[in-house]
Every structure is written in structure tokens, then in C-alpha cells.
């Protein structure tokens, strides 16, 4: 046994594992970000009955890559008279914090079936007991990225944008935190995994015991969810709360003076925080990785393959329409792969190990599905809703969301007390 393996079997291995996990997650998330932009543009285009990106690759599938290249190779201009340090710090701050918040999100119930040099491989980077608090701390710091960017640009519009956004984020952070307290009361824990586990099982034998509808040990959190989601949208400066970057008034808001990759950082930060928020919604209110159906309905375990196989077949069919290499080869290949995976999972009915795999991916499948739904919701909102006026924004934040969420806390607390009473 050589020294490397010994090192790896010691807790050095833990660090290595963590590092690998981080790298993996970064890769995935960044890719997802890239395709999220594509997805967004497509959906909005459909809503506005346009075609959307379709030049670069079929369905513009290579558009994100093109954008990335553009970001990289554009001239990195720095306006004069800026505070260099802060100017550079801001985008880093934004991106780092946005990505860091993903570290505490658990993507699956149980660790991978194999060990990494004797270290168990969980589906999260870290799972602190105060996971939610950590998340909130990170979001709390998230303000600086935008505020400092706005200030450092040494220009009117960014300054105003920064001021607006910092005010907005600080205000909505309150109601966001408040609206979650209900869930915390019901779960009696800050740990995200605990919160999810509390939501497992069914009520009335058929409905999933998700916080949003479940009375179990408390009060259903539909109000809390609405408050949370609205303030989360505001927190991520998305439509209809994207005043910090209100084009019509502030050119491009706090990142007016940022170009090329620094701009990309803000961009990625925004989309990453979208992902974080979506997963939070899924975890806190929609039962995380818990299936929509009762565990006894084993049929539903084959839902993934039921989705994957047709989708893969469609991709093959669609790809064959193209004359390009890409169309002729890659798309069908991709489709075949997807369909194949689906088929394998389906084969789990007869083959025991595959069955285990199928069982194993249930959790991640459901969680990712929910996250996807909320991301779609984001896009949907962007496609439909007009932007608020600033005073309206503040009124909603302080006079509507905050009181409502506080009321929600009180009611929930009362119910929890009532339930826990002997």
C-alpha cells in the first residue's frame, strides 16, 4: 500500500473527496447555467411566439457555448476613475457567494453505494446542522456584490442601481427569513435533510406530506411558500423585481460598467442563485426528494424511464431531420444514450442491481424535477409579468409580505404548540 492511498484513507481523503465533489458540482452548475439561459430564451420566445435562438446548432443548442466564447474573448474594458480593488472584488464576491450557497444543499437521501477510499460519498458537499442559517448568512452577504459593484463603477446609473438593489435585498431578506420560520417550527431543526425527512410519507394515505399542504405537526405552509417565493424572486433581482437592472431607467443597473467576463460573473451568479432558490423551494415546501406518490406505488418508480425513453426517441427522430454532422450524428447519439439509460432503468424490473440503481435515483430525480419546475416558473414569470415601480416594490416588501409572513409564523407556532400539547 503506497503512501498516496494511506494519505487518502486518512482524513486527507476526505479533503480530496470534497474537492472532487466541489469541482463536479461547479461543472454541472455552470453548464446548467449556460443551458438555463438557452432554456429561458426559448421559453420566452415561445411565449412571445418567436423562434428564439436557432442559428448556432439545432434549436440553437450551441448558443450558450457561443455566448461563453464571446464573454471570454471580448475586450475587458475598465472605466476610468473607478476604485480598482472594489471594482474587481464585486463580481468575484457575487459569484463566489452564489456558488457557495449550493454547498449545503443535499441532492439525495442516501450516499452513493460505493466508498471513496473508505469515505462515504454523500450527495452533498456539507450538511451542517444549521444548514438553513448558513444559507441565509450567504444570501445576506450576497448584497455586497451588487452594492459594491454599483458603487465602484463610479457612475450615476450603477450607483443608483446598487442603492436600489441593496435596499431591495435587505428589505426582502426579512420577509424571506420570516416566511421560512414556519417550516423550521414544524421540522424543529435547521438541517435541510431533517426538514426533508420530516416531509416524507403521506397524509390520508395518498397525498404527499409536504409542508405546503401537510398539517402534520403544524400548519400547512402555503402562505409561507408564497411569501418565500415572492421575496426569493426579489432577492435574486429577477422579473418582476429586477429594478436594480431596470433597463428603461438605469441602462443596465449595477453592472452597466461591467463588460466581458466580469459581466458574465454577475450573470452566472444570478442564475446560480435562481437554482439555489428553486432547490430551497423544493426542499422546504415541496418535500425535497420525496416522491409525489406514496412509496407503495412501485409503478411510479419507473417514471424516470417513462420520461427518458420517449424523450430520447424524439431526440433521435428530431436529429435525423438535419443534414449537418451535428444533426446526423450527435443528436441521435445523445438521444440513443438518453433512451438507453431509460431502458436500463426500466430493466430494473428484472435485473436486481439495475433495480437498486433505479431505486437510488428516485430521490435525485424528484428533487431535480421540482427544481426544474421552479426554474421554469422563474422564466414563466419573466415572460408574463411587468416590472414593479420602486415604491410599489417597497410597499409589497414591508407592508404586505413581512406582516403576512409574521402572521404565518404566529399561526404556525400556535398550531405546533397545540399539536405538541399532551
Amino acid at each position: 500500500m503506497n503512501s498516496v492511498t494511506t494519505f487518502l484513507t486518512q482524513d486527507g481523503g476526505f479533503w480530496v473527496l470534497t474537492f472532487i465533489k466541489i469541482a463536479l458540482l461547479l461543472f454541472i452548475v455552470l453548464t446548467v447555467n449556460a443551458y438555463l439561459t438557452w432554456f429561458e430564451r426559448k421559453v420566452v420566445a415561445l411565449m412571445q411566439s418567436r423562434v428564439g435562438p436557432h442559428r448556432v446548432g439545432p434549436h440553437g443548442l450551441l448558443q450558450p457555448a457561443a455566448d461563453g466564447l464571446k464573454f471570454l474573448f471580448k475586450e475587458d474594458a475598465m472605466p476610468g476613475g473607478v476604485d480598482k480593488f472594489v471594482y474587481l472584488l464585486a463580481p468575484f464576491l457575487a459569484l463566489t457567494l452564489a456558488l457557495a450557497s449550493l454547498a449545503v444543499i443535499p441532492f439525495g437521501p442516501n450516499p452513493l453505494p460505493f466508498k471513496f477510499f473508505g469515505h462515504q460519498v454523500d450527495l452533498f458537499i456539507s450538511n451542517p446542522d444549521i444548514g438553513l442559517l448558513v444559507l441565509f448568512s450567504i444570501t445576506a452577504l450576497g448584497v455586497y456584490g451588487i452594492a459594491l459593484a454599483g458603487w465602484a463603477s463610479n457612475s450615476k446609473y450603477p450607483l443608483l442601481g446598487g442603492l436600489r438593489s441593496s435596499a431591495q435585498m435587505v428589505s426582502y431578506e426579512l420577509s424571506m427569513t420570516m416566511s421560512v420560520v414556519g417550516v423550521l417550527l414544524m421540522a424543529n431543526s435547521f438541517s435541510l435533510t431533517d426538514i426533508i425527512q420530516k416531509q416524507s410519507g403521506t397524509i390520508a394515505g395518498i397525498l404527499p406530506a409536504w409542508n405546503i399542504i401537510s398539517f402534520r405537526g403544524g400548519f400547512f405552509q402555503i402562505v409561507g411558500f408564497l411569501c418565500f417565493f415572492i421575496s426569493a424572486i426579489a432577492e435574486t433581482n429577477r422579473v418582476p423585481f429586477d429594478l436594480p437592472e431596470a433597463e428603461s431607467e438605469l441602462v443596465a443597473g449595477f453592472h452597466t460598467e461591467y463588460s466581458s467576463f466580469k459581466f458574465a460573473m454577475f450573470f452566472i451568479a444570478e442564475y446560480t442563485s435562481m437554482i439555489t432558490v428553486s432547490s430551497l423551494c423544493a426542499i422546504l415546501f415541496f418535500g425535497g426528494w420525496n416522491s409525489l406518490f406514496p412509496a407503495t406505488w412501485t409503478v411510479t418508480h419507473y417514471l424516470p424511464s417513462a420520461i427518458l425513453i420517449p424523450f430520447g426517441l424524439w431526440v433521435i427522430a428530431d436529429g435525423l431531420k438535419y443534414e449537418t454532422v451535428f444533426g446526423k450524428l450527435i443528436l441521435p447519439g445523445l438521444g440513443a444514450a438518453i433512451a438507453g439509460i431509460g431502458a436500463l432503468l426500466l430493466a430494473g424490473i428484472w435485473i436486481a442491481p439495475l433495480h437498486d440503481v433505479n431505486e437510488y435515483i428516485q430521490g435525485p430525480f424528484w428533487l431535480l424535477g421540482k427544481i426544474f419546475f421552479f426554474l421554469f416558473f422563474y422564466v414563466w414569470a419573466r415572460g408574463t409579468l411587468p416590472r414593479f415601480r420602486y415604491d410599489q416594490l417597497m410597499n409589497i416588501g414591508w407592508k404586505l409580505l413581512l406582516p403576512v409572513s409574521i402572521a404565518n409564523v404566529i399561526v404556525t407556532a400556535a398550531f405546533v404548540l397545540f399539536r405538541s400539547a399532551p
Partner: protein
Amino acid sequence: MSPELIVFFLLAALSVIGALSLILQKHPIHSALSLIVVMVSLAGLYLLMGAEFVAAVQIIVYGGAIMVLFVFVIMLLNAGKEEHTDFSKLAKFGGLPLALALTGLLAAAMIHNGASVSNNATPDALASTTKISMLLFSTFVYPFELTSFLILVAIMGALVLAQREKKA
């Protein structure tokens, strides 16, 4: 040298550097940033001591609210670098030595009296969080309510202070 010690020294160095740069930086924003650094590293220290809840609150409230307020105000008032004036002498030659003496004195006292206290930390995060909340609502319930009242008063005071004077 246990990993805890290493982490401690890292964070301690970070915080001291932050504090120093708070003094040395000319521009308020930079001072604010360095103060944020101090606070975050202090939060790290709290984590090290197993006071997870306090650490989180430290970051959320200090980092996420108070310092944001500072930055916000700095931006609002568009504060520039601070300019030198004749009065700086007094501070430099009067205040600086005194403050340093204060530091030394404190440190000495701490060392001496600290010798008595032994370190028996039991990092038990969630339990401590629960216990803290228990304490807050049992032993310290009156102070707790009082602080809520204090905050109310502070809010009103801030409003009264900050509102633009009415154009009669």
C-alpha cells in the same frame, strides 16, 4: 499543532489584519470592507468554539444588515477619502499611545485573569441553539422583550431623524 490551532491562528490573523486595515484605509468603503472581513473571521472563530448559532447570527445581522447599512449610507452620502486637518495631532500623539496602552493593559489583565479559566468546550451545535432559545425565553425573557421594545424605538428614531425636513 492541532488543526484547530491552525484555523484559529489563520482567522485571528485575518481579523487583526482586517482591524488594522480598518485603521489604515483612507476610504470609508475600504474600512467597511475590512470590518466585514473582521466580522466574518470572528464568525469563523465562533464556529471554532462551537457557537454555531451565534456565528450565523453574527454574519446575518452584522454582515448582512448592519454593515450593509453602513455601506449603503456611505454610498448614499457619496463619502470621499478623509482629509487631514490640524486636529489630527491630538489624536496621533495623545490618543494613539493611550489606546495602545489600553490594549496592553487589557491584554495583560486578560492573560492574568484568563489563566484561571480552563477551556472545556463541548461543541454541540444544535443542542446549544436549542438551549440558547430556551434561555432567551425563560431566564432572559424580560431583557428579550426589552430589546424588542428598544428596536421599535430605534426604528422610530431612525425614521424621525432620516425623514427629509418638510417644506412648509
